[in-house]
C-alpha cells in the first residue's frame, strides 16, 4: 500500500470513528427528552437525565475525532480540504452551528439555575444532535451522488443539489440511524428499566432506517441516486450495511444489548467505507469515474513523509488512551458514577 493510500485509510478511520462515537452522542442528544422523561426511568427532579449520563464521560473524547479528521484532511489532503469545505459551505456552517450549540448545551446544562433554563438547554441539545446528524447524511448523499465541479475543480452546492430525493433520503437515513445507535448505547450503559425502553425505541427507529434507506437504494437502481465508480465493492458494502441493520434489529428484539450496539457501530461506520472504497481512487466525483483523484488531492511527498513519522508514533498512542478512557468508565451508570453534565 502506498503512503498516500495509507493516509486515506487513516482519514477514513478518523471519520468512521467520529461517525460511530459522535453518532451515538447525537443519537442520545436527539432522544434524551423522551428517553429520560416523566416515565421515571431516566430523569429525576434535579434534572439529571439518564440518557445524558450514559454518554457523559466519553463526550469530550468523542467530539475530537472530528477535529482530528479535519486536521488530517488539511495536513494530508489540502487540495481536497479547501474545495470540499468551501463547496459545501451552507451544510458545513449548519453542522458547525449545531455542534457549537449542542456541545455547549451538554456541558453547561447542569450549571443552569432552574427548570426553565434547563428546558432551553434541552432544546439546544436536541437541535445540536439532529442538525449535525441530518447534515452529515446530506454530505454523504452528495458525495455518493457526485457534485457539479467546474473547470477549475471548485464546486458549489445549491438548493437543488441538496434537496434532491436521493440526498434527502440519505440525510434522513443517517439521522434515524444515529438515533437508533444512540438508543443502543443507552441500552448498553443504563439501568434495566431505561435499557429496556431504549431497546424498544432502537428497534422501532431501525425499521425507519430500513424504510428510508430502501428508498435511497431504489432511487440508485433507477439511476437517480448514487453513481458509484466501483460497483462491485459498493454492492458488497451496501449488503454489509443491510446485514448490520438486520443484525441490530434482531439483537434489539432479543435483548442482546452488546450485539445490538456492535451492529449499529458497524452500520454507522460503513457509509464512510462506501464513500471511500466505492469511489477509489476518486475522493470527490462529479459523476462515476470522473473527479478529483487521490494523486491530485494529496499533499507534497516531502510533507507526507514528515507527517508519517509523527503518525506512526501518535496514532497508536491516541488509540491507547482512548481505549483506556473507555475502560476506565466501563459498566452501567448509577452508583459509582459521579455526574457532572
Amino acid at each position, binding site marked *: 500500500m502506498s503512503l498516500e493510500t495509507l493516509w486515506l485509510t487513516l482519514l477514513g478511520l478518523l471519520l468512521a470513528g467520529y461517525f460511530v462515537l459522535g453518532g451515538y452522542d447525537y443519537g442520545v442528544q436527539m432522544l434524551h427528552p423522551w428517553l429520560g422523561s416523566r416515565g*421515571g426511568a431516566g430523569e*429525576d427532579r*434535579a434534572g*439529571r437525565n439518564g440518557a445524558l449520563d450514559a454518554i*457523559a*464521560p466519553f463526550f*469530550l*473524547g468523542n*467530539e*475530537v475525532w472530528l*477535529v*482530528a479528521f*479535519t*486536521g*488530517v*484532511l*488539511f*495536513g*494530508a489532503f*489540502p*487540495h481536497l*480540504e*479547501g*474545495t470540499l*469545505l*468551501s463547496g459545501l*459551505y*451552507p451544510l458545513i*456552517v449548519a453542522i*458547525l*452551528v449545531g*455542534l*457549537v450549540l449542542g*456541545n*455547549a448545551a451538554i*456541558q*453547561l446544562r*447542569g*450549571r443552569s439555575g432552574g427548570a426553565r433554563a434547563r428546558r432551553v438547554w434541552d432544546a439546544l441539545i436536541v437541535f445540536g444532535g439532529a442538525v449535525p446528524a441530518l447534515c452529515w447524511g446530506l454530505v454523504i448523499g452528495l458525495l455518493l451522488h457526485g457534485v457539479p465541479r467546474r473547470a477549475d475543480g*471548485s464546486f*458549489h452546492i445549491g438548493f437543488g443539489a441538496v434537496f434532491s430525493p436521493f440526498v434527502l433520503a440519505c440525510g434522513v437515513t443517517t439521522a434515524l440511524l444515529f438515533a437508533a445507535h444512540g438508543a443502543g448505547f443507552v441500552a448498553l450503559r443504563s439501568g434495566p428499566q431505561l435499557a429496556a425502553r431504549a431497546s424498544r425505541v432502537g428497534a422501532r427507529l431501525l425499521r425507519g432506517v430500513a424504510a428510508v434507506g430502501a428508498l435511497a437504494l431504489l432511487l440508485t437502481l433507477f439511476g437517480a441516486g448514487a453513481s458509484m465508480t466501483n460497483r462491485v465493492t459498493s454492492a458488497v458494502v451496501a449488503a454489509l450495511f443491510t446485514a448490520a441493520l438486520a443484525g441490530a434489529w434482531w439483537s434489539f428484539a432479543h435483548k442482546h444489548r452488546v450485539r445490538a450496539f456492535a451492529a449499529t457501530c458497524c452500520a454507522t461506520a460503513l457509509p464512510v467505507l462506501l464513500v471511500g472504497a466505492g469511489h477509489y481512487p476518486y475522493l470527490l466525483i462529479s459523476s462515476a469515474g470522473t473527479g478529483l483523484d487521490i494523486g491530485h488531492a494529496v*499533499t*507534497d511527498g*516531502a*510533507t507526507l513523509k*514528515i507527517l508519517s513519522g*509523527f*503518525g506512526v508514533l*501518535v*496514532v497508536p498512542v*491516541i488509540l491507547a*488512551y482512548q481505549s483506556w*478512557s473507555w475502560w*476506565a*468508565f466501563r459498566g452501567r451508570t448509577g*452508583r*459509582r*458514577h*459521579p455526574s*457532572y453534565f
Partner: protein
Amino acid sequence: MSAADLARLQFAATTGIHWLFVILTMGLVPLVAIMHTRAAFTRDPVKRAVRERMTRFWGQLYVINYAVGIVTGLVMEFQFGLSWSGLSKFAGNVFGAPLALETLIAFFAESTFLGMWIFGWGRLRRGVHVTLIWLVALTAYVSAYWIMIANGFMQHPVGYEVRDGAAYLTDFGALLSNSSALVALVHVALAALTTGGVFVAGVSAYHFLRRTTETELFRGSLRLGLWVATVTSFFVVVVGEMQRPVIERTQPMKDAVLRNSGVAEAQARLVREHGPGDYVPWQDTVRISMDVMTIIGNTVSTITLIAVVLLWKDWLLRRRLALYVLVAMVPFPFIASVGGWVVREVGRQPWLVYGQLTVEDAFSGVSTTEVAVSCAVFVAVFVALAVTNWTLITRFARRGPDATQLGATEPLPAQPPAGLAPRTPAPLPHATASLSAPSSPLSSVTES
C-alpha cells in the same frame, strides 16, 4: 461590504472571541494542576480536604470556560477551508502539517484527558487523577506551540520554496524553529499565566471583601495567584519587547507603523517588491492597541508586585482598598491580550502569508448572501456563548466552594420509588471529605 470583507469580519470576530476563552483556559489549568498536586500530597486530612475543595472550586471555573473554548475551537479548525481555500491551494503543503499535528498530538489528548479528569473524582486513583490534569495542562501548551508554528508561517514564512504558484516544504526544522513563532509563543504563554493568576487573585480578593469563612482556601489561592501573576507579568513585558527586533527584521511595515515613522518608505518598498497596492494596515488601530497593551502590562506588573509585598503577615487581607484593586484588575489582562492579538494580526494586513499571499486573493469566492448569513449567525452564537460563559463563571465564582458541582458525588439513596421521596439536596460541601472517609461507597473505588 464585499463577501471577502464579511468573511474577514467573521474570521476576526470568531478568532477574537475564541482567543478570550483560550487565554483563561491556558492560564488556569496549570494553577489547577498545582492545587490538585498539593492536595494529593497532603497527609493531614483536614488540610487535604481544604485543598481538594480548592482544586474543585477553581477546576469548576476552568471547566466552564473550557466548554466554550473547545466548541469555538472546533469552528476554528474549519474556518480556513470554509472561507479561505486559496490558503490551502497555495500553502496547504506547508501550513496543513502543523494544524494536522496540533489536532493529533494535542487537541485530541487534551479533550480526552479532561473528560477523564472531570468524571474521575472518586473513581480513579489519586496519582492517576493528578497525572491527568497535568497531561491536560501539557497538551494545552503543546497545542499552543503548533498553532503558533502555523501562525508563525503566516507572519514570516520560512522553510519552503515556491514552485508553479504553490509552496512546498523544504526545511521542516526551520518551520519548527521560526523565531516569529517561538518568541510570540513565550509571550502568549506568559500572558495567559498572568491572566490566570490575576483571575485567581481577583476572585479570592472578592471573597475576602465579602468576609468569607473559607479563609484558608482563599488565602492559599490568593497567594498562588499573586505569585504567578507577579512573576509572569514581569516577564511578559520583557518578552514582549524581545519581539520588536523580530518584527523589525521580518515585517518592516508593522515596525514602521508601531514606530510611527517611515510608513511611506515601507509602502514604496513593498510596491517595488510586490507591485502596486495598499500595504498599510489600519495604523491608528494598531498603535492604540499597542499602547493599551503596554500600559496594562506595566500597570498589572507594578500592582501585583506591590500586592506580593503586602502578602507579608497578611497585610493585604486587611486592606479593603487593595482587595478592591485586585478585583477590578481581573478584566484588564483580557483587554491587553486582545490588544496584542490586534497588533499581531491586523498589523500584518493585507497579507495572509506575509509577502506571498494576500487575504483578498485567498478568499474562496463564496456568495455574499451565504457569507453574510453565516457571519451573522456565527457572531451571534459566539457573543451569546461569551455572555453565557462569563455569566456562569461569575455566578459560580461568587457562590464560592459550597456550590461547586465538579467532583461532587450524588447522595446515593437505595433507589427510592420514583416520584415519592422528595429529593434530598446534594451534600456538596462535604462530598470531598466523604471521599477519604472509609464509610463512603466511593472510597473503596478510590483505593482499589
